[in-house]
């Protein structure tokens, strides 16, 4: 305990400590019956964590396990901001009485701790711990709608597939340790540099297995099969959490590991990764075309988007960090917005199919505008942030290596296909007019209207002034 205090005063790991304590506070809410105030406490706590995180001592090495460089601080900030946003938009779901908010919030907060570790690890064991801390609460959260069969199914599937992937990841880590004799990221890099082009099979097989493990976490093809089932079965905002924050953190970790340790060995994995990317983009986008549920469509869209984001790992240079930060921010905000609208539409209409969006523009003009902008952003159409994120990502890939032109062409073709299914939502909302049933006119609380408008503003303002994120020094 005294060590903890020492660290806290030293401004090391403050955000992690705050969130862990907050999680415990949240668990106790039922016992000490302050559950009504819990939402405010959590919101304040997460906001505090953001401030603490920004004041984190920079470039501190913590127990030789974590390194709080600029990359760690800014990705943690982004993730915490998304978590804060998540708590705001998910309020309604946890007030509905179906879920126990104190348990759920605690699990979310613990998962967030895992996410923060994934942005700042400097040791393979920490990376593994981060992934597990992030994943285990989610196995439970996926099944948090206890009375719903598909929620239970999602939980089990997620757990089985996750356990399997963890096994492979560990396998890979063992191989790497076996060939290099260290878990430290920088030492591995030094070792690989020294080995030059003469890499032992044990080492690059290890890299490939780690890549597979991480590819599972970010749902890249052909390790994506769990995603649609789990995303569809889980409660709406748990899905939103998985699609944005979990995925963002997994990418931050993925990139950190490969950028720090494996760039010099890229000859052994770049080609495989580019094939995975192409497969992911094509599978995600093509299967999304044939979905009838918007939630499932968003699941496939998240697979496809993972394909684009993986381009940054392939790139593994300084510019890619900015592309990654920008893309996660863009994708995170747009996806949370889309899920929030979907949540309300499902609540009003009872289903999450494309048909439930029919003539939404007549009953809920604001929801329709918000959803339209979120879809435009996901499809990458100006003036939204989604456009700039894609543009910046693709152009930095081409700038650094023109031999990936084919991959960019696949990406662009995939984006074209994606326009079809994103626009299906918009067309349903505006293009068709059907008689309106009065029960469908129910409006959503004003709080959400304001929140959604704010989100839309963020999407558009960031789209017009992306410099805000690009001006961070030395990411």
């Amino acid at each position, binding site marked *: 305990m005294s060590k903890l205090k020492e660290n806290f005063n030293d401004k090391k790991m403050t955000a992690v400590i705050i969130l862990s304590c907050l999680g415990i506070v949240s668990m106790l809410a039922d016992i000490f019956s302050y559950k009504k105030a819990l939402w405010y406490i959590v919101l304040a706590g997460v906001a505090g964590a953001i401030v603490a995180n920004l004041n984190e001592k920079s470039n501190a090495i913590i127990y030789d396990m974590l390194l709080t460089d600029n990359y760690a601080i800014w990705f943690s900030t982004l993730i915490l901001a998304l978590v804060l946003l998540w708590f705001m938009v998910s309020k309604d779901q946890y007030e509905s009485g179906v879920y126990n908010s104190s348990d759920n919030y605690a699990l979310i907060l613990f998962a967030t701790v895992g996410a923060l570790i994934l942005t700042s690890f400097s040791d393979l064991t920490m990376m593994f711990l981060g992934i597990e801390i992030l994943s285990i609460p989610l196995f439970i959260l996926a099944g948090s709608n206890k009375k719903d069969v598909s929620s239970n199914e999602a939980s089990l599937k997620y757990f*089985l597939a996750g356990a399997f992937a963890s096994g492979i990841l560990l396998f890979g880590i063992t191989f790497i340790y076996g060939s290099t004799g260290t878990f430290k990221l920088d030492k591995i890099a030094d070792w690989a540099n020294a080995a030059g082009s003469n890499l032992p099979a044990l080492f690059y097989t290890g890299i490939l297995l780690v890549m597979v493990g991480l590819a599972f976490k970010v749902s890249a093809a052909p*390790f994506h*099969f769990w995603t649609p*089932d789990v995303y569809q079965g889980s409660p709406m905002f748990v899905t939103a959490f998985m699609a944005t924050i979990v995925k963002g953190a997994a990418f931050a970790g993925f990139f950190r590991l490969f950028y720090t340790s494996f760039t010099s060995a890229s000859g052994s994995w770049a080609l495989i990764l580019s094939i995975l990317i192409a497969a992911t983009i094509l599978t995600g986008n093509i*299967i999304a*075309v044939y979905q009838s549920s918007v939630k499932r469509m968003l699941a496939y869209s998240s697979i496809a988007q993972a394909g684009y984001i993986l381009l940054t790992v392939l790139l593994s240079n300084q510019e890619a960090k900015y592309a990654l930060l920008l893309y996660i921010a863009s994708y995170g905000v747009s996806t949370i917005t889309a899920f929030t609208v979907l949540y309300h539409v499902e609540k009003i209409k009872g289903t999450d199919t494309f048909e439930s969006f029919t003539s939404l523009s007549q009953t809920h003009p604001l929801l329709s505008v918000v959803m339209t902008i979120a879809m435009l952003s996901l499809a990458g159409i100006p003036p939204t942030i989604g456009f700039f994120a894609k543009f910046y990502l693709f152009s930095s890939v081409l700038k650094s290596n023109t031999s990936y032109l084919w991959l960019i062409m696949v990406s662009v073709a995939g984006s074209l296909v994606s326009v079809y299914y994103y626009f299906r939502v918009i067309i349903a909302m505006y293009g068709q007019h059907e008689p309106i049933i009065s029960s469908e006119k129910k409006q959503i609380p004003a709080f959400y209207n304001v929140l959604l408008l704010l989100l839309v503003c963020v999407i558009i303002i960031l789209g017009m002034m992306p410099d805000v994120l690009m001006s961070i020094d030395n990411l």
Partner: protein
Amino acid sequence: MLNLVFLIPLLPLTGFLILGSLNNRLPKTIVSFVGCGTVLGSFVIVLTLLSGTLSGTITSATISYFDWIYAGDLNLKMSFLIDPLSVLMMTIITGVGFLIHVYSAGYMHEDSGFVRYFAFLNLFVFSMLLLVMGSNYVVMFAGWEGVGLCSYLLIGFWFKKDAYNDAAQKAFVMNRIGDLGFLLGMILIFTTFGSLDYDDVFKNATSVLTENSGVAIAITLLLFIGATGKSAQIPLYTWLPDAMAGPTPVSALIHAATMVTAGIYMVVRSNILYSLAPFTLDVILAIGLATALFAASMGLFQNDIKKVLAYSTVSQLGYMFFALGLGAFSAGMFHVTTHAFFKALLFLGAGSVIHALHHEQDIRNMGGLSKKLPITFLTFLTATLAIAGIPPFAGFFSKDEILAAAYERSPVLWALGLAGALMTTFYMFRLLFVTFFGTFRGTDEQKHHLHESPLVMTIPLMVLALLSIIGGFIGVPEVLGGSNFLKNFLSSVIIPYGEKHEHLSHSTEWILMTTSTLAVIATIIMAYVIFVVKKSVPAEDNKISGLQKLIYNKYYVDEIYDTLFSKPVTFLSKIFHSVVESKIVDATVNAVGKAVSASSKILRLSQSGNISYYLYVMVIGIILILFINNIL
């Protein structure tokens, strides 16, 4: 006083934003207050600038606000240039604009689109101010497009009538053709000078461009094409007569006093470039003169009160370009100024007549209105005298300066110019006599309701009438004891051109002046004899023939354009539609779509829902990855 400059365009913009966002929720009094007040505010600030430029405390000031476009070599600032030329234009825009806003409050009072109308009008004033205040071509272009948009919106203001929408579209398309020229000209300026700032371009003009070089001619001609669109010159003039579909005050403000003079402003602003391209000036001279004569001849037989004024505007704009082509830039600006007064007045007077007759525009159904509408009549008469060029009304001085410049070049040009002026005099007095003299020829219903317009409309008329009387005194030539104040005022902006010609002696000038005045008076008498003494009324549409019919139908120019351009394009477009579009493009696109959809249908089956199958595929995937890695 310069620190308030940003408010000049900002006030009307604020007005637009307020009115635009609170559509139909405000009482009309507040709407007119906001609409007129914002323009008045700008006018007051412009007056302080005007006094500053007159007293010489401001000569030329560039005020930058922020970087607008910053990309590669292109560094554009949102900045304003305050110098005599822009201040003169700003004074006209906000001053005449304010009067027309006030007039509109009365004229449009019964209209259901009252708020929308004022919102658009404010937006127009904002754009027009941007156009003249910008200190580089791009800001000018932004304003240029803005006024084009407002013009489009206001021509089609009563959008429920298809004909009006067609007119709006025609104006838009014609302007677009011109705008392309402007845009290309701008690009050429940028590639030649590496900058679009007036400062950089004009300072380096003489060193970069040689006289009559290809580049100089290309730049100036392209810019001039832009001007022919906006200022309704041959061959792009046809939209302006149709633009009369908009509310009459709009015709007064946009299609007579301000927007259509944007082309002249642009040429005068770039006079340094034009003086390096005498060839272009000759082109402008020819087109200006041709437009002046051609449009005037079309005005001779029109029976719609606004159409007459529209052709008159085209013709007067031609006159201004004629002046520019002669190198008499300040004479052109002088005519812009006086024309703004008397043509706005003519339109507003016509509006007052139309208002009194409940939207009757055919002069054959008018007559004898002078007694019922005394103020309208007297002010209309003033404006008519001004446009005819009777001394000492405003039009006399500006027209005389142009004619004198023409005589310096060649007596033939002078004679042609005078012929245009005489035609103008004839159709204007024809209009005046047929409308206000004789007996009333409308229905009893209309006669019963005849009334003078309310004060809110007549006061602007009176102010403009006063300006039409005294406006000419800002440019009294030396021969009449003046010092041509306007020319000196603009001398810092306009470099002298054509000094190689000998100046006319005072006696020649006297002779020219007297000749033209006497000829004008003779024409008035002729019109008086025909329309008042003989009481002839223009014939019914189906009873005219020969030359008159040709002219009445505007020489069939619209039909010729239709056959030459529209029809071939439509034909081509049909071919492209039926062959290229549906057989090639559509077929390919549909095939791709179907392929994606079909593969989606198949791939979707891989998602079986069976977890052991998922794990199996994962393992296969890992094996494949390791395998591929080993063989490569």
